[in-house]
């Protein structure tokens, strides 16, 4: 399926009142974040997208692809499923070794060269994790961070879906700025559910959720983009200190001063 746009028409919130955001549309290459306090319905919104909600989920939303609704009993050839959802799961339940699981998934997704896909997937995932994932490890033995890194890499490389939904990519201690950087190399529609201001401001749009309802749609303005760049510096500062701590160094005020200067956080 050749995806050009995805459009979500509002339904109702938890108490049944109509959503204030009546519709939003994403074009290929767009990035949108869904923000709001926990329990406000962010995950439900991406689940609706993933299920091609047709006024048949509790939210009553309607999702259209290229301006058309997807009939309810339309079942995609799993090889061509246009949406990959990376859920909040930080553990796998599959009693299979990583290599075998990826091999079956590559087969399900109809890749020409499963071995190469598996290699690329692990290479992608291992850029985000602390310790590398090995193919002979059981899926259930992976740590939370390794699980999420593998989920992201699998969705992008093996899934190769044009629309990627990511639920709280910042969780479980993966290298999220690196993840964003790697993801942006692929021309897709990205939908992030996030609590991270940096990710939210790097997006083209953000939807503010409240009480199960899409409350507001904001288009990131030029000033916000500048702030995003500053937040990126602060992110890097935190990451550098994380590296110091992880590698067993003792922290000094000089380190902080040096970081603040090299990252140009203070002039």
């Amino acid at each position, binding site marked *: 399926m050749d995806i050009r746009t995805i459009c979500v028409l509002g339904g109702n919130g938890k108490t049944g009142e109509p959503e204030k955001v009546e519709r939003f549309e994403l074009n290929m290459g767009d990035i949108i974040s869904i923000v709001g306090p926990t329990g406000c319905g962010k995950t439900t919104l991406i*689940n609706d997208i*993933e*299920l091609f909600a047709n006024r*048949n*989920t*509790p939210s009553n939303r309607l999702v259209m692809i290229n301006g058309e609704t997807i009939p*309810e*009993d339309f079942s995609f050839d*799993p090889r061509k*499923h246009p949406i*990959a*959802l*990376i*859920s909040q*799961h930080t553990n*796998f*339940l*599959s*009693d*299979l070794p990583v290599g075998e*699981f990826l091999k*079956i*998934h590559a*087969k*399900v*997704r109809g890749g020409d060269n499963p071995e190469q896909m598996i290699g690329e997937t692990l290479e992608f995932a291992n850029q985000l994790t602390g310790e590398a994932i090995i193919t002979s490890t059981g899926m259930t033995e992976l740590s939370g961070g390794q699980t999420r890194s593998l*989920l992201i890499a*699998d*969705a992008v490389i*093996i*899934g190769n879906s044009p629309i990627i939904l990511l639920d709280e990519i910042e969780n479980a201690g993966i290298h999220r700025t690196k993840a964003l950087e790697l993801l942006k190399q692929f021309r897709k529609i990205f939908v992030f559910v996030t609590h991270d201001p940096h990710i939210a401001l790097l997006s083209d749009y953000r939807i503010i959720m409240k009480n199960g309802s899409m409350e507001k749609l904001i288009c990131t303005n030029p000033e916000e983009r500048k702030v995003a760049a500053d937040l990126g510096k602060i992110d890097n500062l935190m990451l550098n200190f994380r590296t110091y701590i992880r590698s067993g160094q003792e922290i000094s005020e000089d380190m902080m001063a040096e970081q603040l200067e090299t990252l140009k956080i203070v002039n």
Partner: protein
Amino acid sequence: MKLIIFAGPPTCGKTTVIRQVIRRMLKKGHKPAYLKIDVLYADEDKIIGEEFGIPAKKLYSGELCPDHCNVVVMDEAVEWAEKSGSDYLFVETAGLCLRCSPYIENSLGVVVLEATSGMNLPYKIGPMLTLADIAVITKIDLISQAEREVFRYRVIEAAKEITVVESNALYGIGIDPIVRHIERSGEIEQPMFLRGNPPVGTCTICVGKKEIGAKNHFGVLRTMEHDLFYIGE
């Protein structure tokens, strides 16, 4: 009368799926009846009877193997549902036996499988899956999409002709396609026949011999070394 038989390992979500299906069937003006067959304890008949005000009944198989119980009572069960003015009979089986299968010819066989139950489950449960018409995969929200795709693949690999429906029954997601299959299913024909072949032989354990070891038994036997053989008249 249309007969819909649900099977699946314990706690896989059969009752939750059935409740969602019945809710939608009633909205569409159908008249479902519900029969639960279980071994020792069940209260689903009460819950479903009270929730929907439909004819609901339970049956304890007790000393009988539950799938054996299905076979010997199903004609009466269909009669009961007909007399109570229903046009659909939903039978929820105990779902324990991995060798038998409760499906009847011209009924709709629905196997309910938990997405969380491990990648080898489709190969482990035999006729309960391979003789079913529809496999409903429940609790899909508990696993990742990649795992869902691999699990679905394994279900289809074990049962090539089956229709797979993925569902999060608690939230009523994925129920409508099941309802459509139920509506499209055929009428039951008398006399009714079991769809699959039950396991071979009469079992000496069934008739009360408790000693361990093949030497203490007769009929169709096996040992660690030898596959099936027969001792007896």
